[in-house]
C-alpha cells in the first residue's frame, strides 16, 4: 500500500488536534459552583433547598461583573481600596503596551495553577501537592499578622519573591518590583472578589419572604454591607502585625534549645501531638485544611443523604452536586503536619517566620495559635529547638519513639520508654 493515503489520514487527524476544541471564548470569571449549590458556612448542614436558582446565579454573576469587571477589564469601586492601574498591568491577555511594557502578568505567570478566577483550579492544579491556593475565601497562611487578619502587602510580596519552599510555588524574583506589586494587587483583587461572591451567595438564605429570592442591589447593601467589611480587613492588615520581642542577644543557645525541646514535648505548647515525638510530622496526621475539609464534609453529607431514602428532588440535587464536585472541586487531601527534621518551611526559614507560625498558628490549617498560652520568650526557645532539629537527633531514636505519653504528677505528660 502506498504511504500517501496514510499520511493524508494522519494529517487529517492532526488538524483538529492543532485547532483544539473550538474557538477560544473571551476570558470570563467562573462562578463558585460548589458554593452556589450549597451556600452555607457549615458544610455539614447543607440541604437541597439551599441551592441557588439559575436566576439567582445570574444575579450574583451580574453583581460581580458590575463591581469587579471581567478578567480582561478589571474594575474596582473606590471602596475596594485597590489600585486600578496595577490591576490593569496584571490582568488581560499577555501583551506589550505602547512603551513596550509587559501586560497580562497574571495570565503569563499565575493562571495555569491558580486559575483565571483565582480559585486554585488552573489546568495544572490537580497534579500538584499541595494544591495551589484558592484565593476566594480570603484566607492566607503565611503572613506576619495575627491569625484572623489579612496578610500585608509585604507578606504577599515576599511569597511571590521567595516562592514557598517545599511546594510548587516558585520564586518570581526575576520580575521587577513593580511587576510583583501589580501581581500582589491582583491577588488581593481576586480575593476580595471571591469573598464578595461568598457573602452574596450566603445572603440568599438571610432574605425575607418579601424579597422574593432576590438580593437588594442598592449601594447600602452591596457596598456598605457586603464590600466594605471585606475591604476594611485588607486595609487594616498593616495595623495587625504581630509584635515580636527581640530574641536576647546573649542567649545561651544550648540551654534555649533544651528549653525548647521541653516545651515542644510538654503539655503546654503540645507540638508533639501533631508533629510527633520524633518531629517527623507523624502525630495527628489525618486532618484537613479548611479548603479540603469543606469538600470532604460535603462528600460525607451527600453519602449520608444518599443512604437516607432521599426524595426525587433531593436525588436530583445529589446527582447535580456530584457533577459539580467532579468538575469544580479538587479531591480533598489530608494535610500532614510539617516534618521538622527536613528544614524546609513553606512560610520561610528565618527565625522570625517560625516565630510568626507558632504565635498565630496557620490560618486555614489545623495548626493552632500559641499566643497567650506560651510566653514570647518560650516561643523563641521553641524556634531555636525547631531550628536545631534537621541537624541530628537529640537522643536515641528508639527512646524518642515511645509514643505513649502518660499523665504524670500534676497533670504533666511524661513520655514513657517502651520495653
Amino acid at each position, binding site marked *: 500500500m502506498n504511504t500517501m493515503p496514510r499520511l493524508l489520514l494522519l494529517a487529517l487527524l492532526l488538524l483538529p488536534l492543532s485547532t483544539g476544541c473550538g474557538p477560544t471564548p473571551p476570558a470570563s470569571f467562573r462562578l463558585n459552583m460548589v458554593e452556589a449549590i450549597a451556600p452555607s458556612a457549615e458544610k455539614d448542614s447543607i440541604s437541597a433547598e439551599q441551592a441557588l436558582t439559575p436566576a439567582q446565579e445570574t444575579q450574583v454573576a451580574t453583581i460581580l*461583573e458590575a463591581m469587579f469587571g471581567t478578567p480582561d477589564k478589571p474594575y474596582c469601586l473606590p471602596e475596594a481600596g485597590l489600585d486600578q492601574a496595577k490591576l490593569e498591568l496584571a490582568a488581560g491577555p499577555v501583551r506589550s503596551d505602547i512603551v513596550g511594557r509587559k501586560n497580562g502578568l497574571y495570565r503569563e505567570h499565575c493562571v495555569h495553577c491558580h486559575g483565571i478566577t483565582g480559585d486554585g483550579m488552573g489546568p495544572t492544579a490537580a497534579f500538584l501537592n499541595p494544591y495551589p491556593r484558592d484565593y476566594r475565601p480570603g484566607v492566607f497562611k503565611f503572613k506576619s499578622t495575627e491569625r484572623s487578619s489579612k496578610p500585608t502587602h509585604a507578606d504577599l510580596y515576599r511569597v511571590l519573591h521567595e516562592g514557598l519552599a517545599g511546594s510548587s510555588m516558585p520564586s518570581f524574583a526575576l520580575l521587577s518590583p513593580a511587576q510583583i506589586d501589580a501581581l500582589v494587587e491582583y491577588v488581593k483583587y481576586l480575593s476580595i472578589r471571591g469573598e464578595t461572591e461568598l457573602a452574596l451567595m450566603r445572603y440568599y438564605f438571610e432574605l425575607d419572604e418579601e424579597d422574593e429570592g432576590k438580593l437588594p442591589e*442598592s449601594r447600602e447593601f452591596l457596598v456598605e454591607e457586603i464590600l466594605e467589611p471585606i475591604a476594611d480587613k485588607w486595609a487594616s492588615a498593616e495595623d495587625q502585625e504581630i509584635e515580636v520581642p527581640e530574641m536576647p542577644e546573649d542567649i545561651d543557645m544550648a540551654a534555649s534549645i533544651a528549653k525548647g525541646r521541653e516545651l515542644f514535648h510538654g503539655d*503546654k505548647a503540645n507540638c508533639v501531638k501533631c508533629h510527633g515525638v520524633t518531629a517527623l510530622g507523624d502525630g495527628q496526621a489525618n486532618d484537613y485544611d479548611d479548603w479540603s475539609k469543606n469538600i470532604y464534609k460535603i462528600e460525607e453529607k451527600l453519602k449520608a443523604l444518599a443512604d*437516607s431514602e432521599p426524595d426525587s428532588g433531593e436525588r436530583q440535587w445529589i446527582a447535580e452536586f456530584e457533577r459539580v464536585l467532579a468538575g469544580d472541586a479538587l479531591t480533598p487531601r489530608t494535610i500532614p503536619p510539617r516534618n521538622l527534621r527536613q528544614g524546609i518551611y513553606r512560610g520561610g526559614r528565618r527565625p522570625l517566620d517560625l516565630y510568626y507560625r507558632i504565635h498565630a498558628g496557620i490560618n486555614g490549617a489545623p495548626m493552632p495559635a500559641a499566643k497567650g498560652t506560651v510566653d514570647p520568650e518560650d516561643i523563641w526557645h521553641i524556634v531555636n529547638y525547631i531550628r536545631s532539629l534537621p541537624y541530628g537527633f537529640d537522643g536515641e531514636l528508639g527512646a524518642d519513639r515511645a509514643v505513649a505519653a*502518660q499523665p504524670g504528677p500534676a497533670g504533666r505528660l511524661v513520655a514513657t520508654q517502651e520495653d
Partner: protein
Amino acid sequence: MTLNPRPSFIAAGLLAVLAVGCGPARVSGPLPDAAAAAALRTSLASGESAGAVAEESATGTGWGGLSGRFVFVGTPGERAVLVADKDTEVCSKDGMKLYDNSLRVDPGSNGLADVVIFVRKARRVKNPIPAEQVVFDQKNCEFLSPVFAARVGQAVDVRNSDPIGHNTNISGSSFNQLIPAGDSTIYTPARETNMPVSVTCNIHPWMKAYAVFREDGYVAVSAADGSFTIPDLPAGEPLEFQVWHARSLGPNGGLGLDKPDLKWSSKGRFEVTLEPDQVTDLGTLEVPAAALGG
C-alpha cells in the same frame, strides 16, 4: 534496530485522544447580564442608591419574654460511640466510652436539648452586654456544652479541665488556640454568626460542639428538658425568630416545624408579637424524628 511504529497505531492513538476530548467538563454557571451589570455599576459608582430600603424603626414599646419546650417525637435510637484513638490514657480511661452528642433527648420527658432559638433582627435591645462570662469547658476529651451561645462582646472562658492539652478551633472566626491542661483562655466574639458554627479540636478530631454569637444577645439554647426562655425582648412589634438544630435536615440547619398558627417556615423561622410585661409561652413544640434525620 530502530523503532518503526506502524502508522495505523499512530492513527488509533490520535483517534483515542480525539474521542476522549478535552478532559472532564468544568461546570459553568450562567453568564452575567452585561447590560444590567453596566447599569448597576453606574448606579453604584454614582453614590446614588436605587431602591434603598429605609431602616425599619421600632414600633412597639415595653418588653416581654418568650418561652416554650421542644419535645422529640419518635425514638432517638442508640447514640453512636465515637472512635477516640488519641490520648487513650485519658480519652478512654478505664474503658470509658464517648458518645455522639448531636441528638440529646431527655429519657423521661422526651425534651429535646440543644435547640438554638434567636431573634433574626431586633430593632430595640434592652440590656447591656452582660459582664459575666460564658464558660465553655472540655473534660474527658469532650466539650461539656454541645451547643453554647454568647453575646457579641461578651467574654467566653474557654477552659480545659483535662490533664492533657487541647486546641479549640471555632469555625469562621479564625480562633484556633492551644488550651494547655488545666488552663483557660478568654475569647470575645467580635462578629455575629448568622447560624451556629462548629467548634472542634484538631488534636482529638472526634470532639465537636457548636457556638452561636448574636449582636443583641437574644438567643437561647434549649435545656436538657427541652425548655427555653428568652427574657426582655421588644414587645408590641413583630419579631422574627430563627430555630436551629445540629441534626436538622433543613437548609443551614434551620428547623422547620408544622406550626401554621406561627407561620413556621421550612427555613425554621416564625414570627410573633409579644405582649409587654409577660412571658409568652409557645407551649410544647413537637419535633418529629424525621426532621432530624430519623
